[in-house]
């Protein structure tokens, strides 16, 4: 067990190093220097030259990379040229929003997917199963951003049930109103994300339940006279809980990728929207930091899933 985790961690090290080099080189290759826009166009070229030199922008790439890594370990991600504040503080202010939305979406996803999966498996081949299968098929096919746009159009603009921009209403006073306002702002994106993110869990759970239905331990419980509700709740469902939990790690990747679209459509001030804005303003210290953070979060998500899976399934373990 521990061997597996240790080995996974060791593999992660080169991955992170390659990722950081890649991210750094990509940011370097982006057009424009960081002073574009922040300097008066009439400024003395000599002065710009001096500024570039002062910031080490003429050094060879590996030196710049090394400086960047050293700063990284000191928690210094550089300064945002667009916002004129430390990137770490800028991102810390936005990360909360993204993570709350992701967590909320994930909770809703599980809350919807678990009953649906068990229900579909229990009524295999009957009407509820067909309805759920059509639902998963439809939600799987349609590109997510199209749903977001149609969702905000119908529920945000036409019906006016949900706010269409921001993460909090400016009139919210006191903690109760603040939390309430936050919730109403993440409700629609969270619901849409959950409604269209259940496919994997529902399909997995459905096939697990169908397999379990015909297994010996369920037949034993049935012949002992255990009510079928209890069989589903205590025997079958509990058995498939851990592999289902493993999906949480993988779904982090999906949620983070989706956050770029969700936050753009809902003008929700999180890391995804910050990324899109930073690209437009060529704010490459922010871009580098965000790509790195998203990469590392993806890595941790996969790690989490792999560990849970190796707990469940001894065949995956390396001994």
């Amino acid at each position, binding site marked *: 067990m521990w061997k597996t985790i240790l080995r996974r961690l060791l593999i992660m090290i080169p*991955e992170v190093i390659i990722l950081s080099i890649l991210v750094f080189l990509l940011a370097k290759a982006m*057009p424009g220097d960081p002073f574009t826009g922040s300097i008066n166009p009439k400024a003395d070229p000599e002065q710009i030259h001096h500024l570039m030199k002062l910031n080490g922008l003429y050094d060879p790439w590996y030196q710049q990379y090394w400086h960047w890594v050293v700063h990284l370990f000191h928690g210094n991600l550089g300064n945002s040229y667009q916002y004129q504040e430390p990137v770490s503080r800028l991102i810390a202010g936005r990360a909360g929003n993204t993570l709350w939305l992701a967590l909320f979406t994930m909770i809703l996803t599980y809350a919807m997917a678990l009953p649906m999966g068990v229900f579909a498996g229990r009524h295999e081949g009957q009407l509820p199963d067909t309805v759920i299968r059509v639902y998963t098929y439809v939600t799987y096919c349609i590109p997510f951003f199209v749903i977001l746009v149609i969702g905000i159009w119908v529920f945000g603009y036409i019906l006016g049930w949900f706010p269409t921009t921001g993460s909090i209403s400016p009139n919210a006073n006191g903690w109760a109103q603040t939390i309430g306002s936050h919730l109403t702002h993440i409700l629609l994106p969270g619901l849409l994300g959950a409604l269209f993110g259940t496919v994997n869990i529902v399909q997995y759970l459905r096939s697990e339940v169908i397999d379990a239905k015909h297994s010996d331990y369920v037949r034993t419980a049935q012949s002992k006279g255990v009510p079928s509700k209890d069989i589903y709740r205590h025997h079958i469902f509990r058995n498939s809980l851990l592999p289902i939990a493993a999906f949480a790690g993988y779904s982090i990747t999906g949620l983070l990728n989706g956050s770029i*679209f969700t936050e*753009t459509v809902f003008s929700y001030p999180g890391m995804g929207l910050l990324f899109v804005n930073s690209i437009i303003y060529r704010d490459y210290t922010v871009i580098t930091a965000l790509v790195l953070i998203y990469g590392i979060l*993806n890595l941790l998500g*996969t790690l989490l899933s792999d560990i849970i899976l190796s707990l469940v399934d001894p065949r995956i373990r390396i001994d």
Partner: protein
Amino acid sequence: MAENFAQHSNISAADLDRLTREAQAEATPSTARIIWNEFKADRPALISLFVVVGFILFVMVGALFIDTPKMMETNIVNYFNRPLTAGFPLGADAGGRSILLELIVGSRNSIGIALGLTVISSTFGICWGLISGYFSGYVDWGMQRVYDFMMMLPMTMMIIVLVTIIPHYNAVTLTLIFSIFYWEGTSRLIRSRTLAESGKDYAAASLTSGTNRWKIIFRDIMPNISSLIIVDTTLSFAENIGVETGLSYLGFGLPSQTPSLGTMIANANDPNNITQYWWTWLPAALEIIILCLAISYIGQVLRRAADASQRQGTAD
């Protein structure tokens, strides 16, 4: 062979002919035949197939007759013309451009990129999966680490960063950039099937009799998993439509003067457009939904055809 046979047996030519015909009737029908039977048994699937193929042909041919630069000229007189007005069946956008014409050219661009992306990324993914699955050991280990690394990358972000780096990109470079990031799913699927196939007797026998390994991979194993390849390619085509349109929607795909279904949906980013001038973006959104549903449905039918126990079509 037939002459040889006639010399050494006393079966008459007519009998031989009859026997051959009987054997052919009993033999497994060809893949194309199975797929066609499956489509005939499922009317919605047949309709989807005609809709998708007909629509793709229509936009490909139709776009040839449209002068794109002229179409993209702004004409303020027609500013936000409503649908069903003279000359504008689907209305006009902020620049007075016909939504219908933009939709045709945009569909051509989006579908073209999705097709290109599917061909490139699937070919690469299939080769990667076959090689990785067949040569187990260090080759497989190394290729799997590359796979893990690619899976870790935040794809959307990387594509956006690459698009901003390349100064003069067009549809071709865009397709190539997307292809870098969209082969992993296919490769994983193909690898696991190749692993199973390479353990079978026919692969081992072929190797023992001295067949070249590459020949075994591409001439023996690949045909055996061809049905999986067909299904996977169809399904990834449906997914790939969402890739370009999504990026174009964010403003990092095709440039705004090149219409795409994504740039058309981006009209909805303006709070005025989204409610007041809904016809500027809704047709493109609905088109994407219908196309994706229809193509995936075709994929489902192909999947059924590939699995004999799920087939609904009867051989005739």
